[in-house]
């Protein structure tokens, strides 16, 4: 019997494609954000409100993933920005190859900000790098405030936690301070935004975070020209 050392990541093929995507995004000055949450936490609603508030001259595009239906793409296309649906047909997460394929036919040169709305799931998407500059995890006030403790991996890997559906807070027994504490326990210096996509409360903080990250992405592009 011979023991052959392999010493590589299981998802090395995914990681290879993700690294290629990341250099393409960086070279073209695209800020790519990977939005992750449980089903029904408000990823699509947040994107709808965001697209509604952004100036129509902004160069924004969206890839939205679901196991079935193109309902989300239909919702998001109403705002006039390019949107493509990725239907995984069963897979519970997006992988880098799906992103690479979905980007075919799009000129990244014409995009500054690319949102990827992952399949609703807090486990699998945390393992698959999509070449994004940052992962963003959403947690709605209708869920348990202990979700960061139950799914630490995704909270640990996300740069921003967005607490959504803030307008419902008076009607549900959600302890906002406990949720924030649990998120910080998993990821001490994580950034946090609290908002309601319905009422618009807190949207300014989110748009401010986006502006800051877009500025940083532009500076990186200038610093590393092709």
């Amino acid at each position, binding site marked *: 019997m011979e023991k*052959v050392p*392999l010493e590589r990541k299981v998802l090395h093929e*995914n990681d290879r494609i993700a690294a290629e995507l990341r250099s393409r995004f960086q070279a073209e000055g695209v800020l790519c954000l990977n939005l992750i949450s449980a089903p029904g936490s408000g990823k699509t609603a947040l994107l709808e409100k965001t697209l509604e508030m952004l100036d129509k001259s902004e160069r924004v595009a969206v890839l939205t993933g679901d196991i079935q239906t193109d309902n989300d793409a239909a919702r998001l296309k109403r705002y006039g920005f390019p949107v493509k649906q990725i239907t995984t*047909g069963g897979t519970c997460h997006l992988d880098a190859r799906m992103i690479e394929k979905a980007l075919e036919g799009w000129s990244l040169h014409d995009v500054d900000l690319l949102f990827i709305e992952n399949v609703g799931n807090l486990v699998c998407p945390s*393992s698959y790098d999509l070449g994004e500059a940052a992962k963003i995890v959403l947690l709605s006030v209708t869920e348990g405030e202990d979700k960061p403790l139950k799914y630490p991996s995704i909270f640990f890997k996300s740069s921003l936690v967005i607490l959504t559906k803030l307008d419902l807070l008076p009607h549900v027994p959600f302890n906002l301070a406990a949720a924030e504490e649990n998120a910080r326990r998993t990821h001490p210096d994580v950034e946090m935004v609290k908002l309601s996509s319905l009422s618009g409360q807190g949207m300014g903080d989110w748009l401010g975070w986006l502006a800051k990250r877009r500025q940083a992405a532009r500076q990186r592009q200038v610093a590393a020209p092709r």
Partner: protein
Amino acid sequence: MPLYLETTMHELGIANAILDTVRAEMESRGGARPQRVGLRIGELTAVDPEALRFAFEVLTQDSDFSGLALDFEICPLRHRCPDCAHDFDVKDYVFACPRCGALRTECIGGDELELAYLEVEDGKSAARTQSTA
């Protein structure tokens, strides 16, 4: 479409990725049969070894890789404190340094999802099997 795009659960996708690597490795070794695959799985990856073993069995049954066994090394979540250089096991996902209380600590283990090794029949016996076939 590659098979792994059509799979439905976390562990099944991972099992497929493992199999892709084993297949590529064995193709380059011409005909020898793989016996065991060694994996390192970090606590933070939320990969369930038994679910992975089951997915792997389903994928390999009645194939050239039928009976290929998985060995697991489960890696605990470990962090290092950059302030006092203390390495510690993370318990209950409390990442603060237990020695000096610093909040910002760095992950040094527990995020692994790695292929460590492959055990194959040695080249001679593989060649004999081929020549008699």
